[in-house]
């Protein structure tokens, strides 16, 4: 640019400040770093999903089927007849704006279409046009509009810019849940082949091989054995590794992020050590090796297709009940969908802890217990020997993952475990934890690389609350109960609060766990000395 043509500072803002035109007339601006790449055709083919093709988000032509409008409207109608939530949420919003400043994407970006109310209005406007008498009659005055290509692009952009975290739903006077709206919005997009690869590839992999990365069974075994070796190095104990073991009492399912991705792997080692120490009769499965379910980010049908493996495997192996590991959206599926979709699991028994004899009454129908429910019961009954001082190097805070907090009500159990395994635990500000928790910004399939800027923006409210406790209490470890969190919060902290590391609950538990026959432990699961830097030289 020539110097004399440089814009003045006040001119620079012109293209950023939208004119006071209404939202209906403001088309979406796809910027690099804020959208996700489309799903590869091969993945759609594996899943028999419609319109597999290679296409680009920034291209004008999205290679849609000729009658795409008809397909979407047909799908719209079908879903209005199937989901009361959807129909109701289309009808009763009064646009009071209570949700507006609750969305982490809006808080971080200021983009008005990230206000939950407007995100839903993107669908509602089309709903009014096609399914409401007054809307059809009054046209734009009632806030209705045609389903055009720009509208569709807007849907794609903003429904893949919602992490389905449900924070807005907590504040809505009518309980309107944007996650429900986004889920249906994505289902509609899927009907014409609009989806993102970071969702569809894990789905395709999971469908075929049982886990998101598409690791075949022998690869899994290899990974687990690797962990067993690491544990032996650290503790001197070779832990059991039961895989696909028929007749075991318990099937253990956890997200595959725990097998492959740091820092989830340390949590996974924690499970292995805990179960070994208890002498639990349990098994891992290579077929049902994925707790996470990216079907949740695709369609209700896809949730069911992927989730079916859990009960099927439990039945095949003849276990009595199931324990689920630390994961976020996995627990939304297990808690709210699994039993309705693939149950009743009457071939299983009501879960009873073999160690304490505690009946898990709250899981008597689904027969699936959350690992922190299981562990907190152990601690409560004094079944674990713990030395929390081993974790003294860590000043810990806890991030409630959206789904366990707002869709399952799991808030106290993880805290109870944490308080028993660390000495320094600090809560983040009240309006950013428990049911008010801020999303990591990378849930619902948005945790990909191309979308990094958007994630950093969306995750800023969370990171900012972490920074608050970091500055106030020198917090250096952010604990979470979700595989996606462990991955995306790591990146988020790297950018916003570089001295805070991310980890899982059972990693810290395993650090503190005094195992029978262990040699003197100097290193934590990450191979770092318990007491901090001064012993570095000894090692």
């Amino acid at each position, binding site marked *: 640019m020539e110097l004399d043509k440089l814009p003045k*500072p*006040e001119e*620079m*803002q012109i293209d*950023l*400040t*939208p004119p*006071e035109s209404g939202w209906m007339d403001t088309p979406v601006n796809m*910027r*690099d*770093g804020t959208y996700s790449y489309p799903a590869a055709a091969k993945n759609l083919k594996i899943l028999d999903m419609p319109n597999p093709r290679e296409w680009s988000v920034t291209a004008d032509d999205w290679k849609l089927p000729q009658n795409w409008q008809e397909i979407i409207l047909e799908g719209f109608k079908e879903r209005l007849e199937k989901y009361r939530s959807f129909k109701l949420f289309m009808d009763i919003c009064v646009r009071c704006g209570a949700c*507006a*400043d609750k969305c982490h994407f*809006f*808080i*971080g*970006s*200021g*983009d*008005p279409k990230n*206000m939950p109310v407007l995100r839903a209005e993107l669908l509602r406007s089309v709903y009014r046009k096609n399914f409401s008498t007054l809307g059809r009659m009054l046209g734009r005055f009632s806030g209705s509009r045609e389903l055009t290509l720009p509208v569709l692009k807007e849907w794609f952009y903003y429904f893949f810019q919602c992490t389905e975290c449900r924070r807005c739903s907590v504040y809505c006077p009518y309980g309107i849940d944007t996650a429900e709206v986004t889920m249906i919005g994505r289902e509609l997009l899927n009907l014409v082949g609009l989806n993102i690869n970071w969702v569809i590839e894990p789905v395709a992999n999971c469908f075929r091989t049982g886990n998101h*990365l598409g*690791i075949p069974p022998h*690869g899994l075994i*290899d*990974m687990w054995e*690797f*962990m067993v070796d690491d544990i032996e190095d650290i503790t001197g104990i070779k832990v059991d590794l039961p895989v696909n073991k028929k007749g075991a009492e318990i099937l253990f399912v956890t997200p595959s*992020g725990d*097998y*492959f*991705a*740091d*820092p989830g*792997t340390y949590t996974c080692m924690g499970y292995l050590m805990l179960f070994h120490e208890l002498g639990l009769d349990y098994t891992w499965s290579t077929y049902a090796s994925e707790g996470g379910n990216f079907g949740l980010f695709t369609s209700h049908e896809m949730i069911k297709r992927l989730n079916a493996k859990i009960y099927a495997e439990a039945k095949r192996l003849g276990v009595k009940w199931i324990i689920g590991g630390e994961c976020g959206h996995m627990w939304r599926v297990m808690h709210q969908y699994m039993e309705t979709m693939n149950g009743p699991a009457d071939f299983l028994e009501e879960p009873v802890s073999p160690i304490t004899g505690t009946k898990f009454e709250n899981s008597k129908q689904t027969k699936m217990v959350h690992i922190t429910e299981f562990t907190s019961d152990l601690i409560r009954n004094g079944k674990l020997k713990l030395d929390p001082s081993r974790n003294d190097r860590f000043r810990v805070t806890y991030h409630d993952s959206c789904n366990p907090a707002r869709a399952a009500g799991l808030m106290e159990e993880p805290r109870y475990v944490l308080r028993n395994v660390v000495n320094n635990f600090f809560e983040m*500000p009240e*309006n*950013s934890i428990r049911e008010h928790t801020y999303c990591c910004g990378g849930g619902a399939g948005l945790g990909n*690389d191309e979308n*990094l*800027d*958007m994630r*950093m*923006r969306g995750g*800023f*409210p969370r990171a*900012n*609350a972490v920074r*608050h406790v970091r500055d106030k209490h020198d917090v250096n470890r952010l604990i979470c109960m979700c595989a996606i969190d462990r*991955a995306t919060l*790591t*990146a988020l902290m*790297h*950018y*916003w609060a570089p001295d805070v590391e991310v980890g899982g609950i059972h990693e810290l538990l395993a650090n503190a766990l005094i195992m029978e026959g262990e040699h003197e432990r100097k290193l934590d699961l990450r191979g770092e000395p318990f007491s901090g830097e001064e012993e570095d030289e000894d090692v």
Partner: protein
Amino acid sequence: MSQTLEHLLLKKRSAILKRWLDLIFDTYPADGRSFFASRRNRIANPVGGAIVDGVDKLFDWLMQGEKSDVRDICVFLDNIVRIRAVQEFSASHSIGFVFFLKHAIRETLDSELRKEQLHEDLLTFESKIDSLALLAFDNYSQCREQLHQIRAAEIRNRTSRLLERACQKYGMPSEW
């Protein structure tokens, strides 16, 4: 900086800062603008909080004259630049906010500057703002660079165990 200009800047501090903030918030969409500008707590409105605080500190730093420490200012600057580095598309948009201060000062002190013939002093002060902008540019580049590192680290982390195992098993170098 002459006594008079400093005096004026201090006297009109709040007006200048307000104008500067307005200009910064104006770079956001109308609806976000009002949300960011609303006086709220940092947990509920972290962007607004960081910008309001940051602007305050930057101005004070500029007023400190010779005593000011560059390391301090980098921290304050970072609070704002780091946010804008992931919000805005272009570098100029991200760091241009520094120059808005010039605009805010000229606008707020217009008549006084004329009356007291302070334009020369102003130029001196403005060159300091220019240095600030250069620092902001460094800072912006660091942020973007960091994002690239995060990207790489993330891909590595995602399958770290697999790769480590593969390297071990097949004798490949583990550094990559």
